[in-house]
């Protein structure tokens, strides 16, 4: 039986592929959501546990990203951003405490 051998010149490529393969699934994504003119965009986002959500407040007004189920309450001063690392799966509706007409949803997959 012939042994599977990797030619020496391909070794760095092969190990790079293996390296990327190992790192990518562990590397959680960062998801950006903007708040501008009192609108949250995108209004619905699908993410995974371990991902970081960054809310960027482009308004001159302070906002919050407040989960209806109490999972998070991120303060977003005017022209500032805030982040939250998703810890558990589920569909979470959130809103701004100061302007409850601003609403959106996070769909968090395990």
């Amino acid at each position, binding site marked *: 039986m012939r042994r599977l051998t990797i030619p020496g010149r391909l070794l760095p490529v092969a190990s790079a592929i293996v390296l990327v393969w190992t790192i990518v699934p562990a590397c959680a994504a960062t998801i950006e959501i903007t708040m501008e*003119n*009192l609108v949250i965009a995108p209004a619905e986002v699908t993410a995974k546990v371990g991902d970081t959500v960054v809310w960027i407040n482009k308004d*001159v*007004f302070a906002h919050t990203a407040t989960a209806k189920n109490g999972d998070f309450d991120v303060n977003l001063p*005017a022209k500032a951003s805030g982040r939250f690392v998703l810890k558990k799966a589920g569909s979470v509706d959130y809103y701004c*405490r100061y*302007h*409850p*007409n601003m609403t959106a949803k996070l769909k968090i997959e395990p």
Partner: protein
Amino acid sequence: MFIRCSAAIAAMVLFGSPALAQGAKPTDPQIAHIAYTAGVIDINAAKQALQKSKSKEVKAFAQDMVRDHEAVNKQALVLVKKLNVTPEDNDTSRALSKQASDKLAELSKLNGAAFDKAYVNNEVAYHKTVNGALETQLIPSASNGELKSLLQTGLKIFQGHEQHAEHVAADLK
């Protein structure tokens, strides 16, 4: 009943004032003045609440009102300067101010829970009235695009405040 009356008066002030009567559309300088005045009125009401109220929730709400309306009015001032528009006093602004100072005087006689309730209920009614005026009259009448867009942002802010005030009112019950 009492609240409904004050909202009705505010509505009459906004919709039935001589300045806006006979289908006359308010001009941009008048609209800017009315919108700015509406913001100042809410800031003054909030400052009274910050002095008088003992409720943490009511005070937090009042602080939100000061912060947001000051931010809107600051933007309004930048815009009128940029557009070289001088806000023009008018009967609607005057009537609004008169009604607001009467309300401040009335609320100054109340204390504790009675004050909190009256303040928050008036906030619901006041924002509702201003939203109605913005939607049906001020925004459609504005001829400058940037003024119109600022009023539209203002409308969303005011709608947010109306809902926020409704939440606070429900908590006070």
